[in-house]
């Protein structure tokens, strides 16, 4: 019963405690070192990580939008047109989860590789220059994130679409609404809770991700997750890493609150 309190809240306290310490490994002292926070927020020329922060949120935002646009028509089809194929297609959506995260990201290395068929075709049709490539670009990182978090977007939208009473759509038709109008006035608003949930479930993990940037990008695509991870495990600079984590979580919390204000709290908690 108290497990969560012990192993979630207490660690958070320690994270805050650590983030205010100063000194070098392994001798840290608690000194209310708020400068840890200001330092990491400086621009990269001044030894901060502002660019990685901005990049994380931009990438996560683009990937979330891409997920929404890609997922909505698919789950719409599954919910209203798939008939007996419904469960099978739902299984297809969750199938990527059955392959180890790292391995399925590595598979994109094979697909987007310079010697691979995708790059060759794109070069042949002159979308890419003769030396153009997909790997180690922003495109690769964002599409990796999009692929990896796609089910988080698709499933909540599916659930909310599936709950829509078909009689409401019939009523809209009986009242001479065109299918387009019925979609925008009935279906879309009723699926809004799913969209809200899906957006959160995609955006939050995407903002903290570092696997995609690590495998599919270069140091120029590094996100804040990469920095936190490296600070903890390679440079052993725990206070900075803790401050970075705290800022990341704080920013997400603020965004969450703003989002809740816009869409209404009931939709957030279900």
């Amino acid at each position, binding site marked *: 019963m108290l497990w969560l309190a012990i*192993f979630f809240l207490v660690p958070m306290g320690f994270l805050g405690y650590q983030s205010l310490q100063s000194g070098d490994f392994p001798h840290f002292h608690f000194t209310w070192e708020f400068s840890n926070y200001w330092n990491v927020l400086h621009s990269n020329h001044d030894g901060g990580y502002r660019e990685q922060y901005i990049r994380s949120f931009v990438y996560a935002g683009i990937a979330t939008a891409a997920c929404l646009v890609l997922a909505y028509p698919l789950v719409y089809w599954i919910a209203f047109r798939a008939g007996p194929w419904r469960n099978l297609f739902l299984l297809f959506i969750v*199938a990527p989860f059955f392959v180890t995260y790292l391995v*399925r990201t*590595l*598979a994109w290395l094979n697909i987007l590789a310079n010697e*691979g068929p995708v790059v060759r075709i794109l070069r042949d049709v002159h979308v890419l220059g003769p030396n153009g490539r997909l790997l180690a670009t922003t495109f690769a990182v964002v599409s990796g994130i999009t692929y990896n978090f796609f089910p988080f977007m698709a499933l909540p939208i599916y659930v909310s679409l599936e709950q829509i009473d078909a009689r409401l759509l019939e009523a809209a038709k009986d009242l001479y609404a065109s299918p387009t109008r019925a979609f925008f006035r009935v279906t879309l608003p009723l699926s809004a809770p799913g969209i809200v949930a899906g957006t959160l479930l995609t955006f939050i993990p995407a903002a903290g991700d570092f696997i995609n940037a690590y495998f599919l990008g270069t140091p120029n695509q590094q996100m804040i997750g990469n920095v936190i991870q490296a600070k903890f495990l390679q440079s052993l600079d725990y206070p900075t890493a803790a401050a970075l*984590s705290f800022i990341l979580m704080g920013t997400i919390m603020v965004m969450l609150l703003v989002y809740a204000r816009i869409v209404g709290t009931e939709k957030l908690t279900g």
Partner: protein
Amino acid sequence: MNTAAETLAPPIRLGIGTRAWRFVKRHALTVYAVLMVGYLMLPIAVVILFSFNHPTGTFNYVWNRFTLDNWIHWNAPLGIQSAIETSLELAALATLVATALGTLIAMAIVRHHFVGRSTTNLVVFLPMSTPEIVMGASLLTLFLNSHNAIQLGFWTIFIAHVMFIISFVVVTVKARLIGFDRHLEEAAMDLGANELVTFRKVTLPLIAPAMLAAALLGFALSIDDFVITYLNAGPTQTFPIFVWGVARVAVPPQVNVVASAIFLVAIALGLGNVFWQYRSAKRTRGAH
């Protein structure tokens, strides 16, 4: 213009027009759905395909020729077998503990009005709304600040896994408990069963499907988790950490073999479930 045409046109022509439009739309969507499934399946197909590859050099990026060697000698790379064993042990143990604790939390939240109930609700929700890296980092600082009382390793990963699985268990079991008919328990008590017997014979069987679903989900999450595990692992290697380690050098095709095997087991369970649901749906339809 559209509305004018619609109000003026005779109803039959409108019907044909709408039907034709819908025909086009339906098929466009179907094509789109199939294409999307193709996109979702592509990396999986690549993983499975390259598990049969005989790589030319150390890198398993370019297709060379078909071989079964990787599947036969799946444990050839040093450390892969022990990593898998650790992953399985960890997943089984963490799932077991998390399912038990999570069910109890869910029952407490749904059944009892205690002080701090809504806080508990919120705390359960928090791990799901925090990026993994922050959660992993916070646990790591806890362990690091224990002044060597806790050594990073199997048990620290275990604690971390239980923590994130628990939330999923609570949410799943809670949903089931809310739709639960309390009269069944009252009936059992009226018939002379004590609380323990009632729980074992009535409550438990009714929430068991939700517990099983949560446990399967938890197992899958635990086996797959990298970020939190990596931060709290110390020298212990799970399968994802093994992959991370070799990815810096060259990924042996055996990694694809193991990933494919995990995928095939999971998909077999999933397909079995789809098939079972399909049949039971058919049976209930037949009964009417």
